[in-house]
C-alpha cells in the first residue's frame, strides 16, 4: 500500500467523522418533519366535538372520529383477549424447554410469523373468518391483529422468564408447591412487568396497522359495538380520508393522525419508562 502523508490521513479521518455525524442526524430528520407536520395540521382540528361526534357526510363541516376511536379500542380488546393467553403459555413453553427438534421448529415458526407481511395476515383473516361468517367484522380484524401480536408477546414472555433465576423456582418446589403452581404463581408474577411491557408494545404496534384491516374490519361510518359487524379504526379512517379528494376529510385525517400518533408514541414512551424503572432483575 502506498503511504499517504499523515496530514491527509488525519484530514480524511476528520472528514469521515463529519460525514457520519451529518448522515446520522439526517436519519432522524424525517421523524421531526413528520411530528411537526402532523402536530401543525392536526392540533387545530382537535376539540371536544372532534373526539365525541360521528363523521358527517361530504360537504358538511365538522364531525368527529368517535366511531374510529371506539372501533380501535374494540379491535385492540378482541386481539388482546385472543393473543395474550396463548402467547404467554407459548412463552413459558419456550423458556422452559430450550432444546429439542420440536422447540427449534416452534421458535422458527414464531420468527416466520413475525416476518409475514401484514397484508398477507389480512388475507388469511379474510379467508378464515370473513368468508365463513359472510360479512366483514370486528372479530375478523381482531383475529388478524392477534396473529400480529402473538410473536411479540411470545418473545417478550420468553425473554423475561429466562431472566428469572432458578433459585426462585427451586425454593418454591422445595416447599412442596406443585410445578404448575410454581410456574403460574411464582415464576410468572416475578416476570409480570416484562410480559406486560411486551403486551403494551404489541398493542402499540398493531394499533396503527391498516393493511390487515382493509378487508376484515373494513370500516363503517356508524357507531358499532357488535363484534360481528364492520367497525372503523383510526388507521383505516386516515387511509380512506387521506386518499379522498375532499379537503374537509383531509382535515379530519390530520386530526385522526395526531390522535393515533399521540397514542402510539405515548404507549411506546410509557413502556420505555416502565422498563427502565421496573426492570425484571435479580
Amino acid at each position, binding site marked *: 500500500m502506498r503511504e499517504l502523508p499523515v496530514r491527509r490521513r488525519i484530514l480524511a479521518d476528520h472528514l469521515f467523522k463529519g460525514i457520519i455525524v451529518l448522515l*446520522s442526524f439526517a436519519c432522524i430528520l424525517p421523524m421531526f418533519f413528520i411530528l411537526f*407536520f402532523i402536530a401543525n395540521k392536526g392540533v387545530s382540528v382537535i376539540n371536544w366535538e372532534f373526539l365525541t361526534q360521528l363523521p358527517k357526510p361530504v360537504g358538511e363541516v365538522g364531525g368527529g372520529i368517535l366511531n374510529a376511536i371506539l372501533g380501535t379500542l374494540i379491535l385492540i380488546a378482541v386481539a388482546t383477549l385472543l393473543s395474550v393467553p396463548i402467547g404467554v403459555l407459548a412463552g413459558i413453553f419456550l423458556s422452559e424447554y430450550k432444546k429439542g427438534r420440536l422447540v427449534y421448529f416452534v421458535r422458527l415458526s414464531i420468527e416466520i410469523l413475525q416476518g409475514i407481511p401484514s397484508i398477507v395476515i389480512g388475507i388469511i383473516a379474510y379467508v378464515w373468518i370473513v368468508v365463513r361468517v359472510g360479512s366483514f367484522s370486528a372479530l375478523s380484524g381482531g383475529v388478524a391483529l392477534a396473529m400480529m401480536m402473538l410473536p411479540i408477546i411470545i418473545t417478550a414472555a420468553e425473554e423475561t422468564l429466562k431472566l428469572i433465576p432458578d433459585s426462585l423456582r427451586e425454593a418454591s418446589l422445595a416447599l412442596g408447591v406443585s410445578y404448575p403452581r410454581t410456574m403460574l404463581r411464582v415464576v410468572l408474577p416475578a416476570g409480570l412487568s416484562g410480559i406486560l411491557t411486551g403486551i403494551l408494545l404489541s398493542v402499540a404496534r398493531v394499533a*396503527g*396497522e391498516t393493511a390487515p384491516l382493509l378487508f376484515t374490519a*373494513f370500516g363503517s361510518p356508524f357507531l358499532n359495538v357488535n363484534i360481528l359487524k364492520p367497525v372503523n379504526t383510526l388507521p383505516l379512517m386516515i387511509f380512506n380520508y*387521506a386518499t379522498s379528494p375532499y379537503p374537509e376529510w383531509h382535515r379530519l385525517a390530520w386530526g385522526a393522525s395526531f390522535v393515533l400518533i399521540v397514542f402510539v408514541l405515548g404507549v411506546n414512551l410509557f413502556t420505555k419508562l416502565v422498563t427502565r424503572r421496573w426492570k425484571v432483575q435479580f
Partner: protein
Amino acid sequence: MLEQDTKDISIELEYPMGMLKDSGTADFLTKVHARVKARWKSGFSESSFRKVLYAAGICMLVLLVAIFLSLVIAAFPAIRRFGLGFFSGTTWDPVKGEFGALPFAVGTLIVSFLALIISVFLSIPTSIFLGEYFKTGALSTFIKSVIELLAGIPSVIYGFCGLFLLVPAVRALEVELNVPPYGVGIFTSALVLSVMIIPYSAAIGREVIGLVPSDLKEAALSLGATRFEVIRKVILPYARSGIFAGILLSLGRALGETMAVTMVIGNSNILPMSIFSPGNSLASAIANEFTEATGHLYLASLIELGLVLFIVTTVINVLGKVIVRQMGVGG
C-alpha cells in the same frame, strides 16, 4: 390427595336441586361438579400443565402451516389456470380475466431495492455513529430512541405525510427533469420506504459494530491507524456479515410494506418503464383490488400474489435471522 379433596368438597356442596332430587342426574352432576372443583382447587397436575404448554407451542407451528396451506388452497384456481405463466404475464386485466403478475413483481423489486440503496447510505453511518463513535451518552441515547420511535410510527402516517409532503416535492423535481410530473410513483414510494426501514438495519448494524473485539481495534490504533482507517480496515470487514443480515431483514420489511407504498405509488397495472412512472407493488395491488375483486379467479389471483409475498419474505427473513444468529447477536 385428590380423592381426599373430592370427598371434602362433595360434603360441602349444596346444590339447588329440588327438582332433580330423585333422579340419578343430580347424583351425576354433583360428582362432576365436585371433580371439576377439586381439580381446579389443586391446580393442574404436572403432566397436564406440561401438555398445555406443549399445546401452546405446537399451536404456533400449526398456525404457520395453516396460514401457508390456506394461501395455497385459496390461490389454487389461479395456480392451476396460469401455472408459471402467472409470473411472466405482463397484462393484469380483470375485465378480460387475464392475470399476469410481472408488473407487480417488477414494481416491488424496483421499489424495494431503490429504498434499500437509499436507506443504506443513512443506516450504516448511523450504525457506525452509535456502535463506534458514540457508544454511550446522552446524544447516543437520544438518537437511538428517535430511531426506535421511527419504527413505531404507523405506516399509514408515513403514507399520509408522503402524500402531502413528498409528492409535491417530487412533482417539482420531475418538472425540472422534464419527465411526466405524476408526483406519485416508484421513486416517491422508494423514498418513503427508505426512511421506514432505517431502524431495522440500523439496530442490527449498531449491535454487530459494537461487538467488534476492542483488542482488534486497539491493535490497529497502536500501529498508528486513524479512527477512519480502523473503521474501514478492521470494523467493517469484521461486522460485514452482520450488517448484511440487517440489510436483508430490512429488505424483508420493504417487500411486504403495504400502506405507505399503496398511498404514493400511483396504482397503475402497467409494467413500469422508469423510476418516475407510477406502478404497483405486490402488496399495494392486493390492498387496492381485494375488496373489489369479483369472481373466483380474480380473488384467487390476488391471493396468489399474497402467497408469493409470503414465500419471498419468509425466505429472506429466515436467511437474515440465520446470519444474525451466527454472529451471536440478539436479533
